[in-house]
């Protein structure tokens, strides 16, 4: 009771505050905004730009893989004569491109662009708060993200090229400038960029956790929170607990690179000389990296799953099936994600018993994942389905999650991993769950919450075209990779021309690249639709999707403090769709219970 009263008072006080119209300058409204809605949009636009950089990189290396000996003006245009002489990609730059592509996509697009956008936009609106717990720290979290992005992009222009040891940057390769040109200044900039990124993530994550726990409006019990918030909440907890470990890994790497420490280095002879470091272990880095790295992929995935729960439920006009089971799955996935990291390290020479533990925990994580899939499918069953572009992407997410999740079972089995580790089989798996499921969640969220972000509507027909072309092309890109990998073809290979044994499968690389090119063009449709609609889209109504959650009770035009008057009180969970005995097929969370009505 006390907590609710406090929140209502805070809301009341803030409501007063909102009425004192504080003068906003251009800088405080558009640049150093402390309003969570603006910050969310800043994350989104930055992520879209970074995504395009990563997509162009992928097109360049896909051209190389499909047609290894040919030159492309496209590559020469972006990389110049130094890195693509005659349009033929340099083999060091190939590794640089796959490294930066991975780094940008995992961190900047799928963490910054997914969490950063939707946590910021939705948390205060869906829990019923005026803004995040600390608007100032929130503002800093965006600007650190921006600085991090600029630093990462600047690393593309140093003489030795950007970091090139894979997005996983294992030492000693990433520690020794003599091992590859990208391990020079480019690697230092990568580490600086990631330090800024981690700072951004931590600031955001702390805000998210505090706001969700402390600033819920009256009546918003934890069990009345939309699943999107549950998912983002766990994501933030995961981030706060795991990103600092990456920071420590990066710091130790920086020390090994600069002042001669030997955390990761021992017994190395390179470039004609024995190095003096002894006693360190490269495996230490891998443990530290993957301690973040594994939760990181759930940080990428959980918000997408949460968004999907919301959109599938709203657009099926039906409650999400198994709300509590869904919460339980999110918690189980969150917990288990901390004890599976070793499955990335089965063949490092790590103690085999330790490997067995990770096999067990990793296979266990398939259980809550499966439960989520079954619940999504059952939500659709006997629903009344409206196929908006957001809904299409959400359904697409479930399909891709099935495919990617199932191959995870093979990779989790260490005995099988021996045969497929670091082959294209792995590349297929993680792209399907991240480059399809997670990004589909992001697209779904953008289409669904665009009216809330910008007060306008995106074009539906373009949305349909975007979805179907992307869905088809993405499968076309990633499915063949399973076969290339099962044929034994390693990843991060510049070309397969030196291996006749792969000659009969490498033409699949052409299939992959053609689908990749068409898929990339489809994203032009999306980008155009997005930016055009920001400026010239038709004006949105307050609740275009007839959704129950709180964000749709705010006015279309953004105001500081979100609600013009007091923050509404919540009386029910968010999933009263097609509830028997109700005139409409939706009931907003703020609608009080009817006389005699039971809350679910």
């Amino acid at each position, binding site marked *: 009771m006390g907590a609710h009263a406090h929140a209502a008072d805070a809301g009341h006080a803030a409501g007063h505050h909102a009425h004192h119209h504080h003068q906003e300058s251009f800088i405080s409204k558009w640049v150093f905004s402390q309003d969570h809605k603006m910050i969310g949009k800043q994350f989104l636009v930055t992520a879209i730009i970074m995504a395009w950089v990563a997509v162009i990189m992928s097109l360049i290396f896909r051209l190389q893989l499909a047609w290894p000996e040919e030159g492309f003006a496209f590559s020469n245009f972006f990389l110049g004569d130094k890195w693509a002489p005659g349009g033929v990609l340099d083999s060091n730059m190939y590794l640089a491109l796959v490294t930066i592509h991975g780094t940008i996509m995992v961190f900047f697009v799928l963490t910054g662009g997914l969490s950063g956008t939707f946590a910021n936009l939705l948390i205060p609106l869906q829990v019923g708060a005026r803004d995040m717990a600390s608007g100032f720290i929130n503002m800093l979290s965006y600007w650190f993200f921006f600085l991090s992005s600029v630093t990462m992009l600047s690393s593309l222009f140093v003489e030795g090229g950007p970091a090139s040891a894979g997005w996983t940057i294992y030492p000693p390769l990433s520690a020794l400038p003599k091992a590859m040109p990208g391990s020079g200044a480019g690697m230092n900039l990568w580490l600086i960029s990631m330090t800024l990124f981690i700072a951004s993530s931590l600031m955001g994550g702390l805000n998210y956790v505090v706001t969700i726990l402390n600033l819920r409006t009256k009546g918003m019990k934890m069990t009345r929170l939309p699943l999107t918030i549950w998912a983002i909440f766990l994501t933030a907890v995961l981030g706060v607990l795991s990103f600092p470990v990456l920071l420590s890994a990066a710091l130790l790497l920086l020390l090994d690179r600069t002042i001669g420490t030997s955390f990761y280095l021992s017994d190395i002879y390179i470039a004609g000389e024995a190095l003096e470091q*002894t006693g360190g272990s490269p495996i230490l880095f891998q443990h530290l990296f993957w301690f973040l790295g594994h939760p990181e992929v759930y940080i990428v995935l959980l918000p997408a799953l949460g968004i999907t729960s919301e959109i599938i439920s709203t657009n099926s006009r039906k409650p999400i*099936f*198994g709300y509590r089971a869904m919460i339980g799955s999110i918690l189980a996935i969150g917990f288990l994600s901390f004890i599976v990291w070793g499955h990335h390290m089965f063949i490092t020479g790590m103690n085999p018993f330790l490997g067995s533990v990770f*096999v067990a925990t990793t*296979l266990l994580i398939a259980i809550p994942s499966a439960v989520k899939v079954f619940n999504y499918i059952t939500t659709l069953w006997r629903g009344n389905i409206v196929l908006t572009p957001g809904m299409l992407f959400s359904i697409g997410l479930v399909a891709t999650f099935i495919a990617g999740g199932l191959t995870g079972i093979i990779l989790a089995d260490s005995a099988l991993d021996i*045969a497929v580790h670091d082959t294209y089989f792995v590349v297929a798996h993680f792209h399907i769950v991240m480059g399809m499921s997670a990004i589909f969640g992001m697209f779904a969220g953008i289409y669904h919450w665009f009216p809330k972000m910008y007060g306008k509507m995106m074009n*539906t027909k373009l949305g349909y075209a975007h979805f179907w072309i992307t869905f088809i092309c993405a499968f076309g890109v990633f499915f063949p990779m399973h*076969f290339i990998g099962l044929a034994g073809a390693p990843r991060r290979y510049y070309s397969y021309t030196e291996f006749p044994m792969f000659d009969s499968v490498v033409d699949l690389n052409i299939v992959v690249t053609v689908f990749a090119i068409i898929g990339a063009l489809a994203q032009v449709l999306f980008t155009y639709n997005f930016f055009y609609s920001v400026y010239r889209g038709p004006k949105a109504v307050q609740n275009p999707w007839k959704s129950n959650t709180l964000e749709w009770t705010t006015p279309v035009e953004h105001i500081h403090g979100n609600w013009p008057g007091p923050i509404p009180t919540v009386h029910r969970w968010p999933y009263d769709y097609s509830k028997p005995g109700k005139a409409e097929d939706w009931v907003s969370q703020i609608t009080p219970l009817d006389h005699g009505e039971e809350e679910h």
Partner: protein
Amino acid sequence: MTKLLILTVVVLGILAVAQLARVYELTSKLRGKREEDITPADNRMNAMLMWLFPIAYFGFFLWLVLAYGDKMLPVAASTQGADTDWLLALNWWIIIPVFFITNILLFYFAGKYVYDKNRKAHWQPHDNKLELAWTIAPAIVLFVIIILGLTTWQRITSPASPEAMRMELYAKQFDWTARYPGTDGMLGATDFRLINGDNPLGIVTEKTIDKRMAELVQERADAVASLDQVLPDSKVAEIEHRIEYLDRMAARIVNLRLVMQQDIKAKGEASTYLHGADDVVTKDFYLPANRETDIVIRSRDIIHSAYIPHLRIQMNAVPGMTTSMKVVPTITTDSMRTIPEVVRQVEEINAIRLPQGKSEYVFDFLLLCNKICGASHYNMQMPLIVTSAGDFDAWLAEANKKPFEAMPDTASPAMTDTTNTSAGADSMAVAVADGQAPNP
């Protein structure tokens, strides 16, 4: 000129799109249609696509299986490979039906329950029995997978039998070297500080230590002599740094010699420091069929990975560590070349290669690097030849005739004689480090 043309096309294209967008805006306004109102026609179209898509999806999957299924790795040529392939097949038998059933339900439901404003969705927010059922069922299946997976893993990673030959694969940017234990059957100790042109793997013997010491002494003397010239300050600092480094290296090699002597004192003939001279360092990688070999893996510079896909074995090469993997190959290279599946695959590959004027492909087992290691990671390979045990022994006998050090190491008394030239060279080095002139 072409650039100008492209630019014009792009600009005109953008203008065209902008105009089309304006037209669309106006017509929408006229029709009074709102973007969020999904028309029944649009719903039905997308619902139909939801039903058509799985046909294309499964069709694509089927095509890939039919067109490429027989181009996957052929029969596994090792005992653990056979184990692995069996386990993989079991996993496919579980995964593929689940894949089809869940996808069919998903797309079927997505297309069937098209929105109808006169209908209400079925209100059923949960069913606890169902949740329990579909939690327990996967748990059971996964439990079975875990048990089978871990028993296989245990078989693969258990220590090699004491009778297995231990041989070494040594990785560096960008090639592999094999090392066999020689007539004494034991791989010699190594130290990376002894690496030079004559000793690429850093094998420790009295001679290699002497040679390396002499090199360091010579290099130091040259560096000191070069200081007599007129040089810029930065160059002087560089040379002085170098001299300090060389002194530290020399001190460590002195220490290595001490360690070696202590180890020999403690273990006698069993000390690995006595077994390096007869090792065979070679670019020929041979394994005997039907006999266990324990492959020890080391790296000179960065992480590499020894991956032999046809044997289904893989293990990282980590600098500062020795990793290992054991293997029992079951099919010789010659036999593989006659297996129908392999013959067909080789023919298919040559049908592609020969018309392109490329060299003919003959089947070979191959060792590939499978951990990103730099510019030539994509071409760090070594062929592996698996022969019958008898042929292997014959090959090994021939190979043993070219040991690492042509002369076998001299008998033990020399080790404990502290007045021998090695100790003399060491004291010379130490004296030099102390700034005294070396005694001739």
